[in-house]
C-alpha cells in the first residue's frame, strides 16, 4: 500500500484536488486573503503529515507539475509583448520606477534581514519576493534560497498588495493612474495587480507591465549579490 503513494499520479491528483478546493473557497468568500494557492499548500501539507506520507514520495508527481514552471515563465513574454503600445508611451516612467522600486526592495529586505538576524538562506529566499512567482523562485534558487520560503513570501506580499494597495494609494496621495499602476505592480506583482485592475484599465495595464520589468531588473540586480 505504501508504494501506491509513490505513484506520480498521487502527487498530481492531490495538488489538483486541493487547488480546486482553494478556488471554490475563494469564490465563496471573495476575499484575497483566501488565496487558492495558500489553501492548496496548507491542505496538501496537512494531508501528507496526517497520513505520514514522505514529501519525496509526493514530489514524484510534484516534480511533473514544477517542471511546467519554466514554460509558464517563458509564456509571460506574450503578455509583455501584447502591452508594447502602452509601454512605448510610458517607457521612461515605467523603467525608471521599476528600477528604483526593485533596487529599494532588494536593499530594504537585505537591511531588515540583517537587523532581524535572519540567516543567509532566509535572506536569499526573501530577496526576490516582490517580483512575480516564477521569476522569484528562479532567482531564489540561483542565490542559495529555499524555493518554498520564497513562495510563501511571494504569497504574503501578493495578498498584502491585493488587500492594502488601495489604502497605500490614498496614504501616499497618488492621483495619477500611471503612477498607481507601476507602484502596485513593482511592489506586489500579480497579487496587487488584481486590485489595480479593479481601479481602472490604465492602472491594470501599467501594473502588469511593471511585473515584467521589475522581474527582469531584479534578476539583473541579483547577479551582483
Amino acid at each position, binding site marked *: 500500500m505504501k508504494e501506491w503513494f509513490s505513484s506520480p499520479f498521487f502527487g498530481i491528483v492531490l495538488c489538483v484536488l486541493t487547488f480546486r478546493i482553494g478556488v471554490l473557497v475563494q469564490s465563496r468568500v471573495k476575499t484575497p486573503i483566501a488565496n487558492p494557492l495558500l489553501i492548496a499548500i496548507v491542505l496538501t501539507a496537512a494531508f501528507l503529515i496526517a497520513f505520514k506520507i514522505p514529501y519525496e514520495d509526493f514530489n514524484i508527481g510534484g516534480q511533473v*507539475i514544477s517542471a511546467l514552471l519554466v514554460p509558464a515563465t517563458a509564456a509571460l*513574454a506574450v503578455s509583455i509583448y501584447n502591452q508594447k503600445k502602452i509601454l512605448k508611451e510610458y517607457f521612461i516612467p515605467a523603467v525608471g520606477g521599476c528600477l528604483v522600486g526593485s533596487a529599494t526592495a532588494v536593499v530594504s529586505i537585505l537591511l531588515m534581514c540583517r537587523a532581524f538576524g535572519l540567516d543567509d538562506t532566509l535572506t536569499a529566499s526573501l530577496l526576490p519576493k516582490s517580483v512575480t512567482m516564477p521569476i522569484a523562485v528562479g532567482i531564489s534558487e540561483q542565490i542559495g534560497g529555499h524555493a518554498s520560503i520564497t513562495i510563501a513570501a511571494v504569497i504574503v506580499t501578493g495578498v498584502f498588495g491585493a488587500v492594502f494597495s488601495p489604502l497605500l494609494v490614498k496614504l501616499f496621495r497618488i492621483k495619477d493612474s500611471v503612477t498607481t499602476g507601476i507602484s502596485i505592480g513593482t511592489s*506586489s506583482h500579480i497579487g496587487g495587480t488584481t486590485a489595480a485592475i479593479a481601479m481602472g484599465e490604465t492602472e491594470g495595464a501599467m501594473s502588469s507591465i511593471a511585473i515584467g520589468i521589475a522581474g*527582469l531588473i531584479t534578476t539583473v540586480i541579483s547577479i551582483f549579490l
Partner: protein
Amino acid sequence: MKFLWQIGIILAACFIGEGISMLLPFPFPASVIAMLVLLAALAVRVIKPEKLHESSHFLMSNMSFLFVPSGVGIITIFDSIRGSIIPLLAVCILSTIITFAATSFTVRLLVRLQRRLSKGREVEQ
C-alpha cells in the same frame, strides 16, 4: 495538433534558455532567459503572437497551481524556520510598503517631467 505545436515552440524556447544559462559566466535563471528568447522572437516577428495565444493563455491562467508542489516543500524545513516567522512576515510587509513608496515617488517625478517636456515640444510646434 495546433496546441501541441504551440507548446512545442514554448518548450523549445525553454531548452534554448537552459543552454544559454549554462554558457553564461554568472548565474541567471534559465526561465527568464527563455522568456527573453520568446520576447525577441515575437519582436522580430519570427513568431506571430496569435500563434502562441492558446498555449500561453493555458500556462498563465494556471500559473499559481504550478507552485503547489514547491510550496508544500516548506514542510521539509518548517522546523528550522519556526522561530523566524514573525521577522519573516515583518520583512515581507514592511519592504512592500517601502518599495511602493519609492516607486510611486520616482514615477510621479518622471511622469511630470515627461509631460512637461512633451508640452514644451507642442509649444515649439
